[in-house]
């Protein structure tokens, strides 16, 4: 293709990407370098139903003036990135000095919002992604070997977890694992421990969230693999059978290599999706035991005072995290592509 033709061909999508992706990311980055103006405070007397009190208020006229002069806020450089809410280098080194063991250091570091969210986000991503891949493949192979009549209904039922809105799905499970819900009560009976509560223990909460993640994403992997299975050529399979390969060997040496590009696609999608885990934390009201980067952004933005600087910084670090996670997979794909091209 000529460069000129290529330029006109790519222009509409490039324009849309600049408008809807590059500019917003740029503006979030700019916001992450700023903090709010200094608030001008004054003490006044407030009176109400419960009597009068001396109270501090924000001097609005003075603060407004500062704001009009610099709408973005005060420039703070990278201080939002290094403060306690994010990378927290100063806090970490102080904690290191005060800890008597590595376990103690980890425990202290888990009070820092960014690292606490990172610990759960990474655990969730690296537990859910491989489980979704294996479970999705297993379901696809199972459904593919069913008699044709049963396939339609089975596919429909297997897709249900993906059809349910994530927030609703997690709320449904949340009530099921309640100590009076069907799963919670069952677990209490089985373990003979009337105090067992999936919601009370951080470890069990993490496991519950991971199980939910696998449950809700496995259908996606399943349907992609199932579509891929329809394209596996008959000849190599028959050849393998003649060579005496059993079912497992046929899957391992013929089917899986054939599905590899799909597996990479699913891995990419899952790494991105799981890294921004959010709904189950809200649905399971799990914030006492597990927070994620996306949950932190949500938390900064709601409530009485939206902390735009902190939210923007967490957003930038999330984008950075996604890039780091995807780079190895992308490099691999790029190499494969080049090999095939030559």
């Amino acid at each position: 293709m000529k460069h000129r033709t290529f330029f006109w061909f790519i222009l509409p999508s490039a324009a849309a990407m600049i408008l809807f992706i590059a500019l917003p990311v740029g503006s979030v980055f700019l916001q992450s370098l700023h903090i709010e103006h200094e608030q001008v405070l004054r003490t006044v007397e407030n009176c109400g139903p419960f009597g009068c009190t001396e109270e501090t208020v924000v001097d609005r006229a003075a603060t407004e003036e500062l704001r009009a002069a610099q709408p973005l806020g005060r420039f703070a450089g990278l201080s939002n990135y290094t403060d306690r809410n994010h990378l927290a280098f100063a806090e970490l080194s102080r904690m290191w000095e005060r800890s008597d063991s590595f376990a103690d250091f980890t425990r202290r570091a888990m009070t820092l919002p960014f690292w606490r969210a990172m610990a759960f986000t990474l655990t969730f991503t690296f537990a859910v992604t491989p489980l979704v891949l294996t479970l999705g493949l297993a379901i696809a192979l199972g459904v593919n070997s069913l008699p044709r009549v049963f396939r339609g209904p089975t596919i429909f039922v297997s897709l249900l977890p993906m059809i349910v809105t994530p927030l609703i799905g997690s709320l449904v499970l949340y009530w099921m694992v309640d100590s009076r819900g069907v799963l919670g009560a069952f677990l209490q009976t089985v373990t003979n421990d009337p105090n067992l509560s999936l919601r009370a223990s951080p470890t069990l909460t993490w496991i519950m969230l991971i199980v939910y993640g696998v449950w809700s994403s496995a259908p996606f992997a399943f349907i992609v693999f199932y579509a891929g299975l329809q394209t596996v050529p008959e000849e190599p399979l028959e050849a393998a059978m003649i060579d005496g390969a059993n079912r497992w060997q046929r899957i391992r040496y013929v089917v899986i290599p054939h599905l590899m590009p799909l597996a990479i696609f699913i891995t990419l999608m899952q790494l991105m999706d799981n890294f921004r885990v959010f709904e189950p934390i809200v649905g399971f009201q799990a914030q006492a035991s597990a927070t994620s980067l996306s949950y932190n952004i949500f938390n900064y933005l709601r409530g009485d005072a939206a902390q735009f600087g902190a939210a923007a910084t967490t957003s930038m670090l999330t984008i950075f995290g996604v890039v780091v996670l995807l780079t190895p997979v992308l490099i691999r794909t790029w190499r494969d592509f080049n090999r095939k091209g030559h």
Partner: protein
Amino acid sequence: MTRTFRVAACSSVLALGLATGASADCGIESGSVSILGNDFPALQAVVAGAQACATDSVAVTSNLTADHRDLQVAALTANPSQYSVAVVANGSIVPLMNAGLIRPLDDLVAAYGDALQPTQLVRIEGQVMAVAFMANAQHLFYRSDILEQAGVASPETLDDVLAAAEAIRAQGIMQHPVAMVSGAGWNLAQEFVNLYLGHGGSFFEPGSAAPAINNDAGLAALEALSALTSYSNPDFLTFDSNSVQALWEAGEVALMMHWGSRGAGILSGENSTPEITGSTVLAAAPTVDDAGRPATTLWWDGFTIAANASDEDAAASFRAMLNGITPERIAENSALAVWLGEGYTPTPASAGVVASAEGGAASYPMSPYMGLMHTALGDNLAGFLQGSASAEETLETIESAYITAARGQGFLN
């Protein structure tokens, strides 16, 4: 046939519309009233009163939702603002004040507010910024039958509550007799605020935004919180107002700290048995030390008028809201809340709030940075209750989380 049905349906809707239009006599000529607020029965009653002012030339709409705090600043920043009325409490008026989104009401009060009591006018720097219509506070609910069965007297202090809980547990009546609105986040922070102010603590250095909770009162409040939740269901970090009310109505707890505004619903027995409602007693929040101050905070709920609404809409909104709190309406809805206006006769449902106020409970602080402190508390208290941090570490963590947020918001340097 469908057609006849439709015509009939339409004409009855019209008739209904005309009926409400005809019955309303708020004297408003024209304007548009839209109300944003929290969602509980007393507020629904006030808004129903405002809606009765709707005529052909006066439109009254409302959005009552538990998420109102997250919406209000953005909705009132728009010009013209999305809502002409924001129903707020002493905690949630502050962000609107900080951003200058609500208007002084002195002229409207002078023109239309003769019936208002002076105590209903919330004055900030001498200007009336809100009209309060009800009071609320968390207080103690207990089951007299269970306490009798356990052989303990009605609890007045925190130690009484803990002793009663221990007796109930020891006698095998209930394993988890205590419930509080202790879900991690805002709710758990509110429990700490109640206990901390009960110990006479203050959150900030005098005259500054610097935090001051790392002290004996803070340690005592944490200890009290941990003692109370040790008698709670292990799921306590996921409890919100609705789930705690449901536990009470199911008869699963015998001692509860809950909002007074829930009292009417609980006593109505709609979701409960006569045995439970009959033995439910509403009492002052327990005292925590010798000072004898109930460990709770007093809240008022009131309405404010948006600065970015037209003068016509502001006047219409003010008058429509006044129609929601007329003496007749308050008399009719006495059971729903502790009303501040004329016409209110106390009912059993108000006993807890009134007793807490008479006991000298503190009101919730209105400092501009209290919201940041509340958030810092909500984010960091759960670790202590789960046993992953000591009390001293937790207070230190809360202070440093608050300082980071206050720096980002420009309150501290």
